[in-house]
Structures are given as C-alpha cells and as structure tokens.
C-alpha cells in the first residue's frame, strides 16, 4: 500500500482512501482530501516534516504521520 507520506516532492497522485478515524480523518476530508482528489507534494518543511501539499488549488500543510493515513496511487 502506497501512502502520501512516501510521495516525493514535486510528484502528484490520486487519493484512493483514507484510513484512521475520528477528528484527524474528518479534518483531512473537510479540507478537501477525499477519495479521487489529486494531490501534489509541494515541499517539505526545512526540518523534513510537515509536508506542504497542493490540494484543490490551495496550499495545505500536513504532518507525515497524518499523511501516512492517506492511501494513494
């Protein structure tokens, strides 16, 4: 299973499904990351974490640990 935290900087993928539950999952979905959404890894923070993503035309910051809940293809 490939997850979003493994996607290298500058590459784009499609969300297959979200794992995890509760507030984290809900918040990720509300910000527009749901099944089928295209997501681009924009960059990593200077210390390697969190990641900056482009989703639906805006910039979203997500920790790698949370990105690991997002299955991609």
């Amino acid at each position: 299973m490939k997850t979003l935290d493994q996607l290298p900087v500058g590459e784009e993928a499609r969300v297959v499904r979200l794992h995890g539950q509760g507030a984290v999952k809900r918040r990720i979905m509300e910000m527009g990351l749901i099944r089928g959404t295209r997501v681009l890894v924009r960059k990593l923070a200077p210390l390697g974490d969190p990641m900056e993503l482009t989703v639906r035309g805006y910039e979203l910051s997500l920790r790698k640990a949370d990105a690991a809940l997002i299955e991609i293809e």
Partner: protein
Amino acid sequence: MTPITIALAGNPNSGKTTLFNLLTGANQYVGNWPGVTIEKKEGLLLGRQDILLQDLPGVYSLSPYTPEERITRDYLSLQPPDAIINVVDASNLERNLFLTTQLLELGLPVVVALNMADLVEKSGDQVDVAALSRGLGCPVLWLSALRRQGAQELAQAAIQAANQGSQAPPDCLEGPVLDAVSQVEALIQPLVPRRLLRYSAVKLLERDARAVPGTGLPEDLANQVSGVADRLEEAEQDDGESLITAARYDFIERLSRAALTRNNPGLKMSLSDRIDQVVTNRLLALPIFALVMFLMYYISVTTIGSLVTGFVNDTVFGDWVAAPLRQLLEGARVAPLVSGLVVDGVVGGVGAVLGFVPQMLVLFLLLGILEDVGYLARVAFIMDRVFRRFGLSGKSFIPMLIGSGCSVPGIMASRTIEQERDRRMTIITTSFIPCSAKMPIIALFAGAVYGNSGWVAAAAYLAGVLAVVLSGIILKKTRRFAGDPAPFVMELPAYHLPLPRNVLRAAWERGWSFIKRAGTVILLSSVVLYLLQALGVEGGRLVVVDSSEGSLLAALGRLVAPVFLPLGFGEWKATVATFTGLLAKENIVSTYGVLYGFAQVAEDGAQIWGRLAADFTGLSAASFILFNLLCVPCFASVGAIKREMNSSGWTAFALLYQTLLAYSASLLVYQLGLLIQGQAPGLYSLAALLVLAASLYLLLRPRPVGQARRAAV
C-alpha cells in the same frame, strides 16, 4: 422594532473581517460569546440603525471539533440570524464552498459573497456567477473587500433575502446518501423544527448527536435512526461522516465544472509561490525566521518601543501629570495621605503600566503585519517539527510569540490550536516566556546586581524556553496529557500585502484590552498597596507610618517570608514584591521603589540599585528573578487562563504546576549554587537534591506502557 440580524460566515482568511469592517465602519462592539472567549463582534450597518451585523468566527466546517466551530453552529441553529452572508474566497472556490453546502442546510436565507474578485480576474480564471447561483439556489454576488467594491450591493441583497425568508435547500447530496437522509428526515419530522430538518438528519447520520437541538431523541427513535446509518455504512463500506463529506465534495466538483473556467490549469508560479520558495526554503527558512524575530524585538523593545516608553513614563506621567498634580494638591492643603495616594499610588502605579502600552502596540503592530501577510502560518509550518518533540504543535509557537509581548493575548491566541490536549499544554506554558512586563524586573536586577550585563535578559529568555521544553516533556508523559499530538492540518494562505486598516485595528484591540486592565485591576491594586504600605498599627491605632518598615504591608510580608527562605529571598520586601507582582509583574519594580522610600523610580529602577545590591547576592537575585518569571502570572493572565481552559480543575492544575515549577527551579538554582560555592550542605540542599532526582525521573522515564501502545495503533 427588532433589528434585522445578518451573520457573516466563512473560512479563515476569506476576507470576512475586512468586509465586516467595511460594512460597519467604526460602529463595532467587540465582546465575547457566552462561556468562552471567542471574540463576538457586532456592529450596525453604516447608515442603518435597524440592521445588525454579526461577525462569526472563521471556520472550515460546522463539525464539532474546535470551540469556534461549536459556537458558529450553535449560534446558527439555536439563535438564528435573519440571513447569512457567506464570504467565499473565489480564488479557492472548492474548499470554501464546502462550508457553503453546510450553511445552506440550516434553512436560513444565504447570500454568497465571492470575495477576491480582483485576484481571480488577474489570474485569468472565469467564474460564471449565474451558474453558481443556480447551482447553490441562492444569490451570488461579486465582492472585492480589499478595493471596497460590492459591499453595499451585498448588504442590500442580504436585507432583501432576510425579508423574503428562507429558501428550500438545494440537494447537495444524492444517491444512497440522499435516500438515507430522507429516511431519517421522515423519522424525526415530528420532533425537529421544520427549518432544521435537513441539518439534523445529516448530523444524525454523521452520528453527531450533540448537533441536534432539544433534548435528543427518544430511545426507540434513536435506534431506528442508528439503524438507517448502519445500513448505509454497511452498503457503502465507509462511515457516515466520510460518505457525507465525499457527497458534498462531489456536488462541489460538479458545480465548479459548470461555473469555473480555469485559464491556466497548469501550475504556473505565482508571486506568492516565489516568495514562499525563499521563505520556507530548506536552507534559508531558519536564518530568515531568526532574522525576522530579531528585527521584531529590535524595533519593538530596543529602539522605537523603549524611546516612546521612556517618554511616556518620564515626560508624560512624571513632568506633565504627577508634578502639577502634586503642586495642585499641596496648594489646596489636602492631607498628605490623600495627595500621596493620588500622585504616588494612582498616577505612579497606573502610569508605570501605561508606559508599556507604546512598546506593546509596536509589538502587536508588527505581529499583526506578519499575521496579515501570511508569515505566521509559515512559522508554524517551519517550527512544527521542533515543537512536536515536546508534545506541542507548530501552532503553539504563535501564542508564545505574542506572549512575549503580553501573556493575556498570547494565552488567548491558543484558540487556533485544534486539539484540546495541545491547547491546554500551550495555555499552561505560554506565560513561562518572559512578557514585556517582566523585562523591568530583569533590567532592575541586571543593573543592581549584575553590573548591567546583557546576559541577564538572554538567560531569562533561555530559562523561559527551557521551562516550556521541560514542561512539555514532563507533562506529555503524565496521564492527564495521554495520547498523540494534535493533527496538524493547516492551510498555508497565499501571501498578500497587509491591509493597514485591519492591522491597526487588530493592534489597537489587543492593546486596548491591556489598557482596560490598567484602568481596573492595576488601579485598584495600586490604591490598596499604597494604603497598606502607608498605614501601620501603633499603640493599637491605625496611623500613617513614617517608614514602610512598620507598615501593615511589612507585617504581612514577614508572615509569609519564611516560605521563601530556602530560595534565598525569605525577607519581607521580596515577599511583598512577589505578591504585588501577581497584580502586574512590573509592579515589582515600583514596589521596591516604594519600599525603599522613592516615590517615583525609572522603569529600570536605577535609583534603588544600591539598596537592592545590599539586599541580594548574585545567587539569591537569580533565584528571585527565576521564581517571579515562572510562577503564577499576573491576575489578568490567570483570568485569561481560566477563560481559555473553561474549567476550574484545569485552571487550578495550571496554577499549581506553574508555582511548583517556579519553586523547584529557584530551589535548585539557589541551593545547588550554594553547594558549588562551597557552602556546607544542609537540610535545604538535601531537599534540592531530592527535587533534582524527582525532576530527572519525570523527564527521563519512558512513556507509560498503556500510552505507548495507544500511540502505536
């Protein structure tokens, strides 16, 4: 006639506040929502006495996770306004419309304001307003709050919508989700007001029972509703929340395909992107960050700030107010106690505090600019990795940064942290960072005891940061704070030029809350303190005493002083100063001034350096500074802690922890310092060694087993 109420709702950064300022002008009333400190802003529409505008907190959704979200949805469902203006950032249409799909289900008239019209035009994208309006089933209007275009038309449309009443909500949902919603609607119809039928049905399918107005459903009905949700989740292989969220975004995607023509679907670099490439660059980010912080302090504390503060203290309050007032009172032959009370007590006490206002305003102004530009969100992004190590999040940095100006707005800024655990930890630790009111204490001792060394201030900041870090590590291992750090899901808004109106207004609002405090708490405490040190009991009668040695204040101080004996400052003056510091930390300097018999001392207390140097050693001064920096902050901050914690138990825990930490730290420094200086060990050194052992255990022990397992799941 009851006024028409129109609520402004929208995502953070959608330009809601700019629109609110534009529509109401200076006609604003800022208060708090009942029970919490989230700001409640109201104002009358310019030129209309009968239209009340309500600025709601910026939220991404009506889910129940942050206090802002809970307030927004409780307000909209329980005390509904007559209409909602939903401010939508047109340059970020899809995510902004998510909230819109939820607002439309509340059964209230909605008018959508497409803000940032100019930005969209410039990018070459095109939004078909008519198509959007058809799809959403409500009026949609262009707005450029920045250029002040479209606001009046928007207000008119909202008034019209309010007069017409609610519209039927469009069906954002479809397929099996819609079927399930309809089934739930049929079940709960007799119990729920018509207006809230769709909203309640959706919330029940999301298993969010708190959102349903009233006392809840009878058990058999609740079971039936739960059955509908079970069948839906079983059939679609996902939970209700996810299904509904996905259905909303499906609707939004269909809508935006019809209404939005992207001119450049490719990833062209905007100016904002190019700025961000430099500012959050792997190598440059941290140096740039350090430079920005340095400049901010250099400007607000060292140069402009201290110039203005000196002027206000010496010239305005000293020469212009205090001296003429004293002359006037003496000329009128007022009793010395009264004239002293007015000039030294009230003017001296309040003036010393108000002297900070310019410095604080400069700091708030600079912070406001950084916030408005979008840099503070990047700071959280850059610093998250560091803060997570000790159980906080990148967002904890902002409260601490603001807290370096004044803990009150700093503690209040912790609201943006979503998870309760991190928010509480931030509230407890924010006041460890020396606020600008603690600077005079540092300056006083640096001058009196340490030969004016600049290292004292540096050491104080270091001690504050260490206290935050160590507390994070210790507290996150306790059962009270069990669990994983908060999700760090944060928007990084596009950079834009700061809007002077917004920045000035925000700085003034933050500064004004401080001035109000000076006018109330500090005024009262100055009067009480002055009377306590001017009066004493002689021969069974209350008399005005010559020197404060025989005052009531000294008697009280002597009573408590033994508590501080192990810390090296167990004498009454230091005790009294510590207690007056609870009213406002900068009081410590003026208290020493009063106790040493000087009516008015400079901000750094230069007049009393000699007396102070005689009373303190280098070690006991360090212990005194440390205790006063870390212990319970001033009463105004305690008030802020109580409001933000919203729980007496947590407030008590915070204050107890702060006091314990301060006492332990001072004990360690003083007693271990004595040992190093070669003094024979005594009972107190043993106590210090025990505290050291206990602290090391709390710091180094592994995470409790149950917690580690939970974290691994």
